[in-house]
């Protein structure tokens, strides 16, 4: 019916380093009308979660990647307009002489773990008409004997669990002697075979019936089967013990996990802390708050003050705003300030970046922080806005914590932690130069730095100068 030209919707490139994305939600169903630029689906990558707008107006004829699937950038996700390919089925029907062999192979493939597979499956699913006529030509290869043999019927069916074990251990089920109905290889056969020491699989040549069947490994490897040289076994499937619950990691969680580990493996993390008397900032903030809220609708948070003072201090400490790149030290004449933002559900963290913060005054920073934090929570950030940071501020103090050792956002050199402003008894000098105890709002700041580049004394001086700027806040300058 729909004769409009078909337009493909593909997994967009959400930033240079992003290679895959997960479809989290389809906002339209197959058969529904959609306008160009109307939101079509939501995706999640390890950088951002975002909506994908429709590239064209028309009918959503086909959804090729289901919710929860992770595919490579550029993979076709759906089709707008045109006729649905292959009777609307994502999987093209197998060509006529679909040998049992082929079924077995696809069963084996569908059981292997991980996102690569998903990507392959989707790639397969994309209709590729030219492939079909070629397929029968390729088919005769596995069937060395007459096709109508019937002898391999039971043997060639691979059950899901056998396929999974086979792919986990890199074993070709055809090499295993089957004891099931019609010679089928059962789970037990498979496990016994592996326990006895499966020979390493022949490299990419499953059709090798002449090869000695299940030749016992001569090397005495009784406990563990010889690790297959070809593919490393997929990780063991995770099993929940009694009372435990399993939930799959989101793309964002995996991204965070990978980044945190990599950062600790890369940088030599050291943390220094300093206490800052925030009296002056508190007073100025109280004054500015009304004005800012009335005139600009912006709340000048303590974080904005700290950020503003940090940017100013970083000008004098280029290495702390720098980066080790290979054998070189990178410094720059600008500050792209990252802010760690917790997502609303508590299940994720994102670091939007305020670009060229050195050009922003206190109001500009307050406005920028409010904006990116809100859009981070609404999942409305663009990929560019989470990249290119040169220094990061994290603010776990909202819950009253007074110290922490955050992890550096790679490839930066340092991260500043800000903590709760707490009223504390503080020793100061009165007018006569005598020590007295006053009640002062104190904030702790930590600088966690990469000791490969930043030494303790430098970090100490940075914190001292930052404290000085906050304690003697010069309204006119900022």
């Amino acid at each position, binding site marked *: 019916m729909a004769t409009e030209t078909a337009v493909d919707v593909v997994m967009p490139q959400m930033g240079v380093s992003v290679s895959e994305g997960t479809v989290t939600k389809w906002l339209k169903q197959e058969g529904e009308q959609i306008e160009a630029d109307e939101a079509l689906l939501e995706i999640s990558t390890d950088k951002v979660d975002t909506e994908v707008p429709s590239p064209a107006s028309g009918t959503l004829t086909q959804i090729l990647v289901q919710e929860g699937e992770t595919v490579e950038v550029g993979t076709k996700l759906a089709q707008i307009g045109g006729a649905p390919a292959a009777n609307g089925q994502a999987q093209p029907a197998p060509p006529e002489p679909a040998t049992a062999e082929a079924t077995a192979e696809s069963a084996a493939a569908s*059981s292997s773990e991980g996102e690569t597979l998903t990507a392959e499956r989707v790639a397969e699913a994309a209709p590729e008409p030219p492939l079909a006529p070629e397929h029968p030509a390729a088919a005769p290869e596995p069937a060395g004997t007459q096709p109508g043999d019937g002898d391999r019927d039971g043997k060639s069916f691979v*059950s*899901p*669990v*056998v*396929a*999974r074990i086979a792919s986990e251990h890199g074993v070709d089920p055809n090499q295993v002697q089957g004891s*099931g*109905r019609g010679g*089928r290889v*059962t*789970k037990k056969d498979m496990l016994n075979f592996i326990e006895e020491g499966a020979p390493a699989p022949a490299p990419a040549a499953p059709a090798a019936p002449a090869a000695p069947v299940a030749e016992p490994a001569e090397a005495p490897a009784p406990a563990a089967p010889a690790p297959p040289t070809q593919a490393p076994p997929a990780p063991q*499937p995770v*099993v*929940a013990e*009694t009372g435990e619950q399993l939930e799959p990691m989101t793309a964002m969680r995996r991204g965070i996990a990978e980044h945190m580990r990599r950062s600790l493996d890369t940088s030599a993390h050291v943390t220094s802390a300093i206490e800052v008397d925030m009296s002056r900032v508190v007073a100025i903030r109280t004054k500015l708050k009304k004005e800012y809220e009335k005139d600009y609708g912006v709340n000048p948070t303590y974080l904005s003050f700290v950020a503003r003072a940090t940017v100013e201090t970083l000008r004098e400490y280029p290495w702390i705003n720098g980066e080790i790149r290979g054998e070189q030290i990178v410094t720059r004449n600008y500050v792209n300030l990252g802010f760690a933002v917790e997502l609303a559900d508590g299940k994720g963290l994102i670091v939007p970046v305020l670009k060229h913060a050195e050009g922003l005054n206190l109001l500009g920073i307050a406005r920028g922080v409010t904006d990116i934090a809100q859009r981070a929570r609404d999942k409305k950030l663009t990929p560019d806005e989470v990249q290119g940071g040169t220094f990061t501020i994290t603010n776990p103090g909202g819950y009253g914590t007074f110290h922490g050792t955050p992890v550096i956002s790679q490839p930066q050199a340092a991260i500043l932690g800000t903590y709760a402003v707490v009223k504390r008894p503080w020793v100061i000098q009165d007018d006569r130069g005598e020590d007295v105890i006053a009640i002062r709002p104190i904030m702790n700041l930590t600088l966690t730095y990469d000791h490969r580049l930043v030494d303790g004394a430098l970090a100490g001086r940075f914190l001292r100068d930052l404290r000085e700027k906050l304690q003697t806040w010069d309204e006119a300058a900022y």
Partner: protein
Amino acid sequence: MAEKTYLQAISDGLREEMRRDKRVFVIGEDVGVYGGAFKVTLGFQEEFGAWRVIDAPLSETAIVGGCTGAAIMGMRPVAEMQFADFISCAWDQLVTVAAKQRWRAGTPIPITVRLPSGGGFSGGPFHSQNPESSFAHIPGLKVICPATPEDAKGLLASAIQDPNPCLYFEHKHLYRRIKAEVPDERYETPFGKARIHQEGDDLSVITWGAMVYTAEEAAQQLDGDGVSVEILDLRTLIPWDKQAVLESVRKTSKVLVLHEDTHTGGFGGEIAATIAEEAFEDLDAPVKRITAPDTPVPFSPQLEKAFIPQVEDVVAGLRDLAEY
């Protein structure tokens, strides 16, 4: 600990709940003076009086409707359907009113409906059914199917304490046939926790109610073949212990779902579908179902035998799975 029949365990459990909680009362046809069609409440009226052991008119609608009202007023009624089959008369009160009251108004409806169910004694089409799956489909109801005397007592206590309408299916064929140790003290058996009736490595049988014993006898016959069978007794269908089922599937990879209820729309279908969804890659054979066929329960003893899954049927099914 004392050895008790399944029926005795239900009776003792109910009496204990009535003694400890004044809000608990019993209502049903002939439960008072006569002591119940199966004598579960024999002697109750003497002990608790006619106001707590109420002989109801022949109206299941009135019984369940009255229980719902009493529950709203803070009581914990235990209704007896003389036969589970008669519950269809009370469908509207249960499904439209009781099951949805908590959702609509936030009012808990702590009623327990005791349902003598199941066949095996030529009760015919009106006195032999297992209508658990009809109610498992209704959000808001809990479905309990004890198989052992110990569970019969513990699950009844849990049902009476539960703030939701609980359908308690007691299998008539187990009443006096099954005898086992029952703890003397009061205890509650939690919902949604399956019981491993026997452990095994090669095949799993997922079942509940009287079929637990059919499976056990069948499994004994397979011992000789060197096939070890795990029998999982679900104990409650709503909620059901998905985790335990999946664990067993992961262990054995071959599953038989067995129930006395009829085939189409039986709860076994839900279990099989869940296994297919969540443990597909652990399966080494298609999930097999053995159930009653899609007919009313026949009266003739011969036909009833053909209707209710028998030990031979289960043996054949298990052998088929083992050989697959």
